[in-house]
């Protein structure tokens, strides 16, 4: 552990730290543009210059200089001040003075650092360079004249995303950042380069000229577009969510966010259900709450217990608990959250959980993926798998081929191959120190959970300090619904077989409504999507941005999201609708406020009251008779950009789907 002196203060830094990191440990701010903690070191912006002794008598780029024992570092000397001023002056030579019309204004590294470390004015009288704009797809807007050639975007797409598509062409002053032939950047994490860009060269196209950062109210929330539970901040202005940005959480999303989580928010204002509708003479017509409640109570007249609830994919735990409380109070226990009809065993939650954790899977050295297109099912998990492969892990995948961005072996889509493990796979898994199996949604749908559990003993997935058995869900509500026991053993089939008089659909848009022909279908949700089309009564609810709530991601990590904006029109937070319905049905559910609801839920399932990983105990004993059967014909996600009702309502997601997945012609925004 080298000891260095920073501005006279002696500190000990970890071995392998750079001078820049040493300065940060000492509490000194080092300006930088190209350096980024999660990317490789480029050392090309020169903004982080400091004075280091012993060494050549000139300023040194601290980001690329290893801290060594006995170094004397100065960040406050006249030489450093002059060097920073000089670098800043050079950077600004070709940077346009267009901050007033730049979307990065107010959150721009160059702007901030020019104020803090630059000299007052410019001495440059010549013409500035201008660079033509580059098309990078429907999400990234480019104003390349502003580019300062830090190459963060190039390094991100190469190292993190694993899709080499952004590059730096030409040289010197003429260097330009572009994609090959200006094709759209087409991977699931492309928009993260917008956050990485320290200037306004890459900005958000959908958010262009919408708001200034200081006008926005920031609310801590959780992304519901997949089961990763990425930590986000919702930035809202008035009653509208303007954008979603990732928060740093090294255990979950590091500091990235999938394009869907980031850009589906414009769907929050489109196709919203903002009033009560009831079906009269086959047509949905506007109505009052009391009328709708009366119809539901009427349908249950004399047979209160004939009620069932199905939960959608975006729900918070509180809504599901309230629905369950209502259904139970009516004397029914027909609840189900696996709306597509899966029936896997949920008696032991450890068997349906991502036990390695996202941070842990990075350390796996042999990974078998059964039935998951990880890039689409959980784009941020694929980043972790990529890191594992870079560290030497071998990956085997069963299912139709997709491009994992790292070397992987596809073993075909026939699951029966696992009944007699191929020798190569067996050898790799058995010799691995930290072997892992990931069972995806396509595998779950084939009912091979029990058979997969048999691999635990075969491969030695559970050992000291390591649990390599993982199930990857694709629905944000899934783990919470399982913890709340919001499931029926027979799945959706059992619910349909009971043919309930009233079916409460809590934003369930992927379920088969055809099986409920005789039921009064009540849709409590926020978007006019598939569920609303089939509904007899629509009660307008709140989306994830419009209510407080608890979410549990696929690792079993309990996280709280806060309410950013109010729901539009007559829409109410879902639990209040269910509470009012309880009164209309003449039953008591035992809560009158959100706090009481939450307390009751935590009393029932204490793990939901504690942020962090829930403890699900040990894996169950495998059923020795279970066998791998069937063939994975396809993955449940057919279109990455249109997986939930919010995304389907979003124009941005629709455009991404058209352009990036279906190859529609490039549509330049009319500006």
């Amino acid at each position, binding site marked *: 552990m080298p000891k260095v002196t920073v501005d006279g203060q002696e500190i000990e830094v970890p071995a392998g730290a750079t001078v820049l990191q040493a300065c940060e440990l000492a509490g000194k701010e080092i300006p930088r543009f190209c350096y980024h903690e999660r990317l490789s070191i480029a050392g090309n912006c020169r903004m982080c210059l400091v004075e280091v002794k012993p060494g050549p008598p000139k300023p040194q780029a601290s980001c690329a200089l290893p801290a060594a024992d006995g170094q004397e570092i100065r960040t406050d000397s006249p030489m450093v001040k002059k060097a920073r001023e000089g670098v800043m002056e050079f950077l600004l030579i070709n940077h346009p003075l267009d901050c007033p019309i730049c979307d990065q204004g107010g959150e721009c590294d160059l702007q901030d650092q020019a104020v803090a470390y630059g000299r007052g004015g410019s001495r440059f009288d010549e013409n500035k360079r201008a660079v033509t704009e580059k098309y990078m797809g429907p999400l990234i807007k480019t104003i390349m004249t502003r580019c300062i050639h830090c190459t963060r975007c190039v390094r991100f797409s190469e190292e993190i995303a694993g899709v080499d598509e*952004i*590059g730096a*062409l030409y040289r010197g002053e003429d260097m330009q950042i572009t994609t090959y032939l200006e094709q759209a950047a087409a991977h699931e994490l492309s928009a993260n380069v917008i956050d990485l860009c320290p200037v306004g060269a890459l900005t958000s196209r959908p958010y262009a000229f919408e708001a200034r950062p200081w006008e926005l109210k920031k609310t801590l929330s959780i992304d519901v577009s997949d089961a990763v539970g990425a930590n986000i901040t919702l930035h809202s202005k008035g009653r509208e969510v303007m954008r979603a940005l990732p928060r740093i959480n090294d255990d979950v999303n590091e500091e990235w966010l999938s394009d869907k989580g980031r850009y589906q928010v414009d769907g929050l204002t489109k196709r919203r259900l903002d009033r009560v509708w009831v079906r009269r003479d086959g047509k949905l017509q506007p109505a009052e709450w009391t009328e709708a409640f009366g119809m539901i109570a009427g349908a249950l007249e004399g047979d209160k217990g004939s009620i069932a609830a199905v939960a959608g994919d975006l729900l918070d735990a509180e809504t599901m608990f309230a629905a369950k409380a209502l259904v139970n109070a009516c004397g029914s226990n027909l609840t189900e959250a696996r709306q597509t009809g899966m029936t896997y065993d949920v008696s032991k939650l450890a068997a349906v959980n991502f036990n390695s954790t996202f941070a842990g899977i990075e350390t796996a050295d042999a990974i078998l993926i059964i039935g998951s297109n990880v890039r689409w099912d959980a784009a941020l998990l694929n980043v972790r798998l990529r890191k594992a492969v870079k560290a030497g892990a071998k990956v085997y995948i069963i299912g139709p081929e997709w491009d994992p961005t790292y070397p992987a072996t596809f073993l075909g889509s026939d699951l029966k191959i696992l009944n007699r493990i191929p020798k190569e796979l067996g050898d790799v898994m058995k010799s691995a120190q930290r072997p892992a199996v990931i069972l995806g949604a396509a595998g779950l749908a084939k009912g091979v959970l029990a058979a997969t559990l048999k691999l635990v003993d075969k491969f030695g997935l559970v050992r000291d300090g390591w649990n390599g058995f993982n199930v990857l869900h694709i629905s944000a509500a899934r783990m919470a619904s399982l913890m709340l026991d919001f499931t029926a053993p027979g799945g959706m089939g059992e619910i349909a077989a009971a043919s309930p008089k009233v079916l409460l659909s809590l934003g369930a848009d992927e379920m088969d409504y055809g099986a409920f022909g005789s039921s009064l279908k009540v849709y409590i949700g926020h978007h006019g999507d598939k569920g609303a089309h089939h509904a007899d009564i629509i009660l307008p609810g709140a989306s994830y941005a419009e209510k407080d709530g608890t979410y549990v991601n696929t690792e079993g990590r309990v996280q709280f999201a806060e309410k950013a904006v109010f729901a539009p029109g007559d829409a109410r937070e879902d639990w209040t609708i269910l509470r009012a319905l309880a009164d209309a049905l003449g039953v008591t559910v035992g809560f009158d406020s959100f706090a009481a609801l939450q307390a009751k839920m935590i009393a029932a399932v204490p793990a939901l009251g504690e942020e962090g990983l829930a403890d699900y105990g040990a894996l169950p004993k495998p059923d020795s008779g279970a066998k791998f059967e069937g063939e994975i014909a396809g993955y449940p996600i057919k279109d990455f950009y249109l997986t939930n009702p919010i995304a389907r309502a979003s124009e941005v997601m629709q455009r991404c789907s058209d352009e990036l997945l279906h190859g529609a012609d490039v549509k330049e925004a009319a500006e």
Partner: protein
Amino acid sequence: MADRTPAPDTPELRARWSAFAWTPENKKTADWHIAKYPGGRQRSAVMPLLDLAQRQVGAETDTQGWLPLPVIEYVAQYLGMPVIRVLEVASFYFMYNLKPVGKFHVQVCGTTPCMLRGSDDIIAACKKRGMVKGGVSADGLWTLTEVECMGNCATAPMVQINDDNYEDLTPERLDAVLDALAAGQKPKTGTQEPGRHTSEPAGGPTTLTDMVSANHDYRGEW
């Protein structure tokens, strides 16, 4: 500075070049270059392979050669690397031509020593013969580029034509060289100054004069 943007990606370009593949000899050379690097590091051979591709294009079109986008894509695919990484290399180095050139690519040095020794006259002489900067002359023979220092300051002014340098030029000497090239001959490369061999001082050596006729041992005189 020369325009370094790649030739536009048109259907005609695709039609002409998308069938590009190594000739048998070039394939051998390409694989020989790749074999120089450890397995999995075949990307390291991108520069010799781009040069090889440019020469093959040159042979096919009877020019110095250039790199159409489909050819760049072929090289990328041959090395198993992303196209953008190959285009980065091709657009960085001036010896890769991104636009069609003539049979002879005349690169005139215009940096200070050459300029002081009359490179302006050389450029004027080139233009007088119908050459245009950055384009191909009407007869398809010449492409003129003004470049920065080529490291021949002692024999300035100079031009580089394809793989050879011609130094100590005057407009007349340049004309003689260009005429010879146009006639299909191989003019003497290097300095065009009569009596001069390479870049030794004009008018004979001024130091180590005793070494001219025989190997003189200076060590005792230090």
